[in-house]
């Protein structure tokens, strides 16, 4: 449980930090799930590939926006001394260095993913593909950060959120692993009609 001085005082930034953090986790989880759905080439008539693909990219950008709010409100909050450096350099801070450090790592990874994604055409497909695997590192780090920081971790709504996010990603990953043997391309049409 956090040692929050004068916990009765609810500062706006503190609320925003926690709120945007929760939303970020939700959006990041949605991004990962959409990314997995994308790579399995799942499609329906109303959800063609380009929609899943665009959703994945746009939800990722939205996640960055909320993570940005989360980081910014943390920096300007007066109750904890977290500097700008701590946002990107892990384990250097004084407040919960381990869990905060994970947050910094997660933020760094997210920035790398977004940057390589936007520069895809310049770095080429192979380089992009390799760096995109970092997504599978980014999400667990973000999750651990959320759990470890613990500000609302014992609250039922937060617990429920984390379980839902964790569950969704777990299901997606398991499904992906289970179906990764099947070829994605359409099989050749029947030999003779």
């Amino acid at each position, binding site marked *: 449980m956090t040692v929050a001085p004068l916990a009765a005082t609810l500062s706006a930034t503190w609320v925003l930090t926690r709120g945007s953090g929760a939303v970020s986790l939700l959006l990041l989880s949605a991004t990962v799930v959409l990314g997995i759905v*994308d790579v399995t*080439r799942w499609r329906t008539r109303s959800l*063609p*590939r*380009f929609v899943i*693909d*665009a959703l994945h990219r746009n939800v990722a950008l939205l996640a960055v926006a909320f993570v940005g709010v989360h980081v910014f409100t943390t920096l300007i909050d007066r109750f904890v001394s977290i500097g700008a450096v701590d946002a990107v350099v892990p384990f250097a801070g004084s407040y919960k260095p381990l869990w905060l450090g994970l947050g910094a790592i997660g933020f760094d990874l997210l920035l790398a993913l977004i940057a390589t994604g936007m520069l*895809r*055409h*310049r*770095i*080429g*497909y*192979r380089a992009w593909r390799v760096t995109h695997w970092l997504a599978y590192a980014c999400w667990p780090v973000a999750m651990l950060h959320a759990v470890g920081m613990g500000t609302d971790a014992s609250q039922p709504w937060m617990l429920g959120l984390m379980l839902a996010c964790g569950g969704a990603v777990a299901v997606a990953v398991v499904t992906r692993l289970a179906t990764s043997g099947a070829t*994605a*391309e*359409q099989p*050749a*049409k029947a030999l003779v009609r």
Partner: protein
Amino acid sequence: MSARAQRPAPPAARAEPDAGARLRVNPIACEAHGLCAELLPERVRLDDWGYPILDDRPLTPALVAHARRAAAACPTLALALERDRSSKNQ
């Protein structure tokens, strides 16, 4: 390890809409994701195995924006929108 580095596809040409742009697919990079056919059915159809067959007809000004989007959406960067090179450089 790999030999000549495969240069990444150039970003979609910033040509004027009627500057003779045409689509070209790198068949080695293509993995039959099929987004191009979804986004530009007027010029792209899929063969029996899910790979794109590009129509040879020139792109009308109205279609160029869609073509650009299709090229940007290709997951493997196999589709590119190029300025129309006539055969002199082939």
